């Protein structure tokens, strides 16, 4: 069974793709059938991934199965479509199919009655298919193809409610920002192809190891890095992710947990042989990740939109993962990606449940007291937040600690301090959200669209069941990588041998204290309200405003594009009309003008023609004579 699934792992990606094609071409008039097909196809993928996981556990080591067919072939350039099944891809396959399945199940409730129900499921299917194709890729070419398809699917889903201007603009922003990153990524791939003559990961591993031009390697790596910076929304290409919440909330859960943003981190892990080949590149990766982690956490402290807080939290956590990659802790980074997938999906789906119940209210200040109305949503959300904050023994604790430990043990003291600070902020902003939205008093009785507060009730089971499953995972998933269980995760997913750090009691205790302190402080401000947030805001003054407005980065980018891109576009058009086109018209006018002048030479008088003839004869004779003279010399 395991062998068969291993060899047919491509079906995991192909089946959801076929579901997309069938829904798009034939089934779009039957929403329920479409949803059924979509769920069924991702369900098969989930089962196959589980068989792979189980098989790997039985095997005791990471399998290394590769198979491919050529897709684009010519001498000097081959792109294959293949599968590379090892510990890394098996774990990712599981995460993607598992989260996608739960999100699709949940969407049955959340998207109920939406006029685009069928196309929603078509897009969900292609999103999953593209991500799974990316995960299975055995070469950079295939990676790029599916990378872009993931981008397409996210464009379609972010802009799903295309009737809203904000959704349309967010989708566009996501695509274009990613394009900027992909520009670098594509150049990096071109360099790889030219330098090494292959795009296959396996072949490249050997080639890169024996390549000595570190300068060239550094350029290639940094170009490739632009891809993950765009896709995993790292500074300075992070701007699209917070806006991406314009899509339906289950889509946000998918994007933030398993697909899209995970792709960037996965790429770094998959091509770790090239990213880790120069220490300079690793430093850049670590710095970008660390900076993003802190920067986004600071912004999250000030936001009021429930999804926006979670979005900045994702940015921050992705920064954590990228930072882990940069300090060489690939295993820890992937481990955090895994645990984060569970609790971030949980948090977003929980937020979706709240938004669904409150008829699309997203401002946490207008919530309050939800615990009484929506107990399942509330308590699962709290579990997710505790996991994210890194409270032992929940999932996030183990993975975050693994990263902090790697930083500490690797001698990256600066990044270790930064990481600990981020942990404190994370705990604070998550519990700021929880105390405000779920506990506290109800602030308003009327919801913004005129519904009464007492109508609010818990979501249907198709929505709460995924929450419960994810809550379970958020509590227990950390043990697969915990030192107490012998770090099974690191046994299957590692680069150049397993890494074992002795658990440092100081690191563990300190990070736990910081997380608890964050929660306690949030309680003082928003639960007990003995501290006043208003006076703090006033004391911070303009700093608060800058942070609240996300450091004005979106505004700066918009200004740059308006001024430089649109400006030069207008200049070029002016040149085209007033110089190039003018020259063309001018030459036409010249010809026309010359014609109207010259026509007076054709006056029909024989004498005039005789003059021309004689003149002509003289000129020709002179020319012949001169030429003759020239030859004689």
């Amino acid at each position, binding site marked *: 069974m395991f062998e068969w699934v291993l060899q047919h792992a491509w079906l995991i990606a192909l089946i959801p793709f076929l579901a997309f094609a069938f829904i798009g071409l034939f089934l779009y008039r039957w929403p329920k059938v479409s949803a059924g097909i979509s769920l069924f196809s991702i369900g098969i993928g989930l089962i196959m991934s589980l068989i792979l996981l189980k098989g790997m556990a039985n095997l005791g080591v990471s399998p290394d199965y590769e198979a491919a067919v*050529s*897709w*684009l*072939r*010519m*001498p*000097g*350039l081959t792109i294959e479509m293949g599968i590379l099944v090892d510990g890394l891809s098996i774990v990712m396959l599981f995460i993607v199919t598992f989260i996608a399945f739960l999100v699709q199940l949940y969407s049955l409730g959340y998207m109920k009655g939406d006029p685009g129900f069928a196309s929603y499921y078509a897009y969900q299917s292609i999103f999953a298919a593209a991500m799974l194709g990316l995960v299975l890729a055995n070469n950079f*070419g295939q990676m*790029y*193809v*599916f990378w*872009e*398809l993931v981008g*397409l699917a996210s464009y379609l889903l972010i*802009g799903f409610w*295309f*009737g*809203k*201007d904000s*959704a*349309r*603009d967010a*989708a*566009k922003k996501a*695509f*274009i920002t990613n*394009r*900027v990153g*992909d*520009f670098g990524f*594509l*150049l990096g791939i*071109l*360099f790889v*192809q*030219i330098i090494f*003559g292959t795009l296959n990961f396996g072949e490249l591993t050997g080639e890169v190891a024996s390549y000595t031009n570190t300068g060239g390697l550094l350029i290639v790596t940094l170009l490739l890095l632009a891809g993950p910076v765009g896709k995993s929304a790292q500074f300075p290409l992070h701007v699209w992710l917070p806006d991406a919440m314009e899509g339906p909330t289950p889509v946000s859960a998918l994007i933030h947990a398993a697909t899209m943003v995970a792709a960037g981190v996965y790429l770094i892990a998959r091509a770790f042989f090239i990213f880790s080949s120069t220490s300079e590149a690793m430093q850049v990766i670590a710095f970008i990740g660390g900076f993003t982690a802190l920067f986004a956490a600071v912004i999250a402290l000030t936001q009021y939109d429930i999804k926006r807080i979670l979005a900045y939290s994702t940015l921050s956590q992705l920064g954590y993962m990228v930072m882990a990659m940069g300090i060489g802790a690939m295993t820890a980074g992937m481990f955090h990606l895994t645990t984060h997938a569970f609790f971030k999906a949980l948090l977003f789906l929980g937020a979706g449940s709240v938004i669904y119940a409150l008829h699309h209210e997203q401002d946490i200040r207008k919530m309050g007291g939800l615990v009484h109305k929506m107990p399942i949503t509330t308590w699962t959300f709290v579990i997710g937040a505790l996991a994210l904050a890194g409270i032992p023994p929940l999932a996030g604790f183990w993975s975050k600690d693994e990263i902090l430990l790697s930083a500490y043990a690797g001698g990256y003291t600066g990044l270790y301090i930064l990481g600990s600070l981020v942990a404190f902020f994370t705990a604070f902003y998550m519990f700021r959200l929880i105390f405000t939205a779920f506990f506290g008093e109800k602030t308003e009785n009327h919801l913004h669209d005129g519904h009464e507060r007492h109508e609010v009730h818990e979501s249907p089971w198709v929505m709460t069941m995924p929450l419960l499953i994810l809550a379970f995972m958020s509590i227990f998933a950390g043990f697969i990588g915990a030192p107490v269980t012998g770090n099974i995760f690191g046994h299957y997913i590692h680069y150049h041998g397993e890494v074992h750090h002795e658990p440092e009691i100081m690191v563990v205790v300190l990070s736990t204290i910081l997380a608890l302190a964050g929660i306690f402080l949030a309680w003082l401000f928003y639960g007990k309200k003995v501290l006043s947030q208003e006076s703090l805001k006033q004391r911070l003054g303009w700093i608060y405003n800058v942070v609240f407005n996300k450091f004005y980065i979106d505004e700066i980018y918009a200004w740059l594009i308006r001024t430089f*891109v*649109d400006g*030069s*576009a*207008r200049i*070029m*058009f002016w040149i*085209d009309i007033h110089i*190039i*086109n003018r020259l*063309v018209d001018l030459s*036409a006018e010249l010809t026309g003008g010359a014609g109207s002048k010259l026509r007076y030479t054709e006056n029909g008088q024989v004498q005039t023609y005789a003059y021309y003839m004689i003149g002509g004869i003289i000129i020709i004779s002179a020319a012949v004579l001169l030429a003759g003279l020239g030859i004689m010399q």
Partner: protein
Amino acid sequence: MHNLPILSLTLLLPAIGAVFIMFLPKDKVKFIRWTAALVTFLSLLLSLLVFIFYDRSTGGMQFIERITWIPDLGVSYALGIDGISLPMLLLTNLIGFSAVYASWHIKEQAKEFFSLLLLLITGVMGTFVTTDLFIFFLFYEVVVIPIYILVIMWGSSKRVTKEYAGMKLTIYLLIGSAFLLLGIISLYVKAYLLTGKPSTDLMFLSSLDYDLSFQIFVFALMTLGFGTLLSMFPFHSWSPDGYAGAPTAVSMIHAGVLKKIGGYGLIRIGLFILPAGAQVIAPVIAVLAICNVLYAALICISQKDLKYIVGYSSVSHMGYVLIGIAALNLISINGAVMMMFGHGVMAALFFALIGNLYEKSHTRNIDDFGGLAHQMPRLATGFMIAGLASLGLPGMVNFIGEFTIFVGAFSEYRVLTVLAVSGVIFTALYILRTLGAVLFGPRQEKWDHLQDLKGVEMVPLVILGAAIILGGFFPFTIMDLINQGATELLAHINLLNIGGI
């Protein structure tokens, strides 16, 4: 099967249809339309058969036909098809067939319209299937006159009048072809002087040794001639105005295939006969190509008229084709041919949809639209497919061309290729802005009366959309052919240096 003159049939069916329509009474509009649809359908079918039955194991010129025509000048009616011309033949017929359906609602002087259109299709096709330089030029000139009449009679006036557009288009192409004619005559005379044998056979002309300065001179003339046709910077200004003024079917055929005669000619004639000249001129072409890519892409960002956006965008995309040709290696040439195919189906689809929308709404200004996906989901799907193809999304045939060109060109021109690749950002910017402005956003009641695509209007979308997506998912079906043709061509001129090695 092989005794049948299948290429002649494919080529002449539209022309026969054109003559037949001329004899029909002019009020039988329905009958005229169906005649045009039938002959183009048969041509498409035949070219698909050629595509399927072309023997890939042997390669080379196949389905050869040869009838001596003017023995004193060495001119033969010689047809044949290989891996480079076959995709072009297929492209012509895919677009020709779709163009008839995109013109379904033409009522004024339908008789003249459809016979000129069919003549145009034969003219374009002729340049791709012949192996004789004289016949090539003959067909090339055949297309100019129908285009002129079609534009000034059935075109539309917006920023410029249709008369201006038609005149500009025609004069520009005639000047281009004058350079070309000069080059062809020099080549013919030179070959005659070298061997004493008059011939316009491409293979014969290519087998001779011309001295370098002659090669440079003639290749430069061809660059001017073919470059103008391919809207090479700074000879591109006919293209946006021309497409904007032309009726839908002409925009489709012109941007889709006619323009590709330029790229095809540069490879099949210029490079094939004058490889040494090509190597000298190539860097110039490469630099101009980058001007095409970036300059035109930036202009697209400032445009509001849908046809101008696609018009300038096609100028931009031709830059990719040009740099692919200029890099002169197998990979880049493969990419250039693939790109011509991809851009052809994409541009034709775009123009078909814009034509349809314009017919119903009487505007092409993107600011007038918004939220059309509410009223016209099928049209929106078509626009999305064309747009995503245009920005080089994998899964669409255009990506294959772009990527291959980038790999091939990158080994030859580092900096220029990096600049060319940066074009993908600007393309994404203007395409997504356009799609967003036209299709998405709140529903506008003033467009509630617009009918979505239905019935025969779906034909261009289905045919061209399928070509884009199937080509994108199964690129080897076309690329293997192109690679075979390009390998043979480059081996013949001893230029088989492969990019990246």
